[in-house]
């Protein structure tokens, strides 16, 4: 059996009701799950003896702007043992945009979640240190949201004072 099928099958057996969709586009397997189950799924994927997705490579969000489920959180995880990249997605359906943090499973997720919070304003609950990553503290907006203009909002970021 191919590893791809093994992953899907194992996930479907374990979490039959919380796997929403499995897609395979250009050889990238991605699994859409319910957002409540994210930590459980993550734990399972990491600890299962055959799968061992030990590395979290990236976390980000997609802002769909007009859809009702506005944000999708995307996790890129990797199994060193099986040399396999898997993508997990979870839709956020209502405000406040919030999802459980996976730092307890993958410590490396810490900064990725901070970055996503900074850029999208998605709150990761139980995150040990949820601060902005790039933008200065006190900045009010979340730049990667689709309603934020590329050129920024004039006056939202101060220039240094020039003392004569």
């Amino acid at each position, binding site marked *: 059996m191919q590893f791809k099928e093994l992953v899907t099958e194992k996930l479907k057996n374990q979490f039959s009701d919380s796997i929403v969709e499995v897609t395979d586009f250009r050889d990238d397997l991605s699994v859409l799950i319910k957002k409540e189950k994210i930590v459980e799924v993550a734990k399972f994927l990491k600890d299962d003896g055959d799968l061992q997705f030990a590395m979290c490579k*990236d976390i980000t969000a997609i802002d769909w702007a007009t859809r009702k489920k506005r944000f999708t959180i995307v996790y890129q995880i990797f199994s060193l043992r099986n040399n396999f990249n898997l993508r997990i997605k979870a839709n956020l359906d209502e405000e406040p945009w919030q999802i459980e943090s996976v730092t307890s499973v993958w410590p490396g997720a810490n900064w990725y979640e901070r970055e996503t919070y900074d850029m999208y304003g998605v709150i990761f609950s139980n995150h040990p240190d949820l601060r902005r*990553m*790039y933008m200065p503290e006190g900045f009010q907006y979340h730049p990667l949201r689709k309603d934020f203009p590329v050129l920024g909002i004039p006056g939202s970021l101060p220039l240094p004072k020039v003392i004569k």
Partner: protein
Amino acid sequence: MEQRPNVYTDDKLYKRLLADKDITIDDALENEMVINMGPQHPATHGVLRLVLRLDGETVLSVVPELGYLHRGYEKMAEDMSYIEYIPHTDRLDYTATLCNNVAYVLAVEKLLGIEAPKRAQYIRMMAAELSRIAAHMVAIGTYAMDVGAVTMVMWTFREREKIQEIFDKLAGARFTTSYTRIGGVGADADSEVLKMVKDFLDQFHSSLDEMDKLLLGNRIFIERLEGIGVISKEDAVALGLTGPNLRSAGVEYDIRRAKPYLFYNEIDFKIPTYAEGDCLARYFIRGDEVRESVKILYQVLDKMPQGEVMANNPKHVLPHKTEIYSKMEELIHDFMIINYGINPPVGDVYFSAENPKGELGFYIVSNGTGQPWKMKIRSPSFCNLQALSKICKGAMISDVIAIIGSLDPVMGEADK
């Protein structure tokens, strides 16, 4: 001759110090100190800022602060076509511009489902390996400079300069090359370029050995690095380290081997690994990788096939300029691509390539129009920096500099 009073043994002085009500012994011994390092610091490789809590000289904790070079790459990507974005990839990891170019176009090609001709792939491979050498030259040079061997930076930049001359010939720019195109490369590598590469490689070995001799015969260099900044295999994986930093901790993971892209599967090369995971291993591994790159380059030069350098795919690949000026159909295609974009199918792909710093990944979400709906860059330096606070805990303050140098972050891509 009059004896100078000694603070520790001179009774009078000692008593006077003790009598000073403003300083207590407890103060001096127990107080922790918070210091700020960067963002303008010669050893932080750009604009990284660290806030350190010290007990004496021991580092208790480190908080890295990023964002001083946050240029909004991902936001800008949503606002421009796929082709327009190629020059922006140069400036991600600006020490290895061509590696980024290659990784980006491969990601877009994966999304489109097209492939560049074989010669173009080989040229890309050559360019990426040259770029890797150039990046490691900067890494080794600045690393050695940070720990005190200032000569090295001059020597490595001398070698890098030769590579940049090759780029100048190949891509038309020394530094910001923007050389690859979707479906191929910007210009063919003519025989002159290939000869330049060959000449460079032929003399490179001796200068590499020379550099090694300078550093490894130097006890100060070895002792400053050996056993410093150790990271274990498990931690390295858990924190998501990639590239040389991961391999120096004993994990043999190299995307060129694990998921071969271009034609790395036709090339014979080793993946150097070290088990120690300390700063010295991270120095060695870069030297070894450069040697492997030289080996790869020789093979690439040998195997380079003849043929086209741009794929024949009028809907996605820009036609050549001379054809645009002489043929109607090409003119129309050019107009369509430039005005409406290359319109990849709806979907999302993640593609990653092995960059000098680690795994550079592009996650592109397309909604079928000429501009990406979302582009996420998984930058290796960002992830590698995350290990900094773990490694630095308990180290001496002077080791922090060595550790940053050994992790070799480039802030351009860490901050995006």
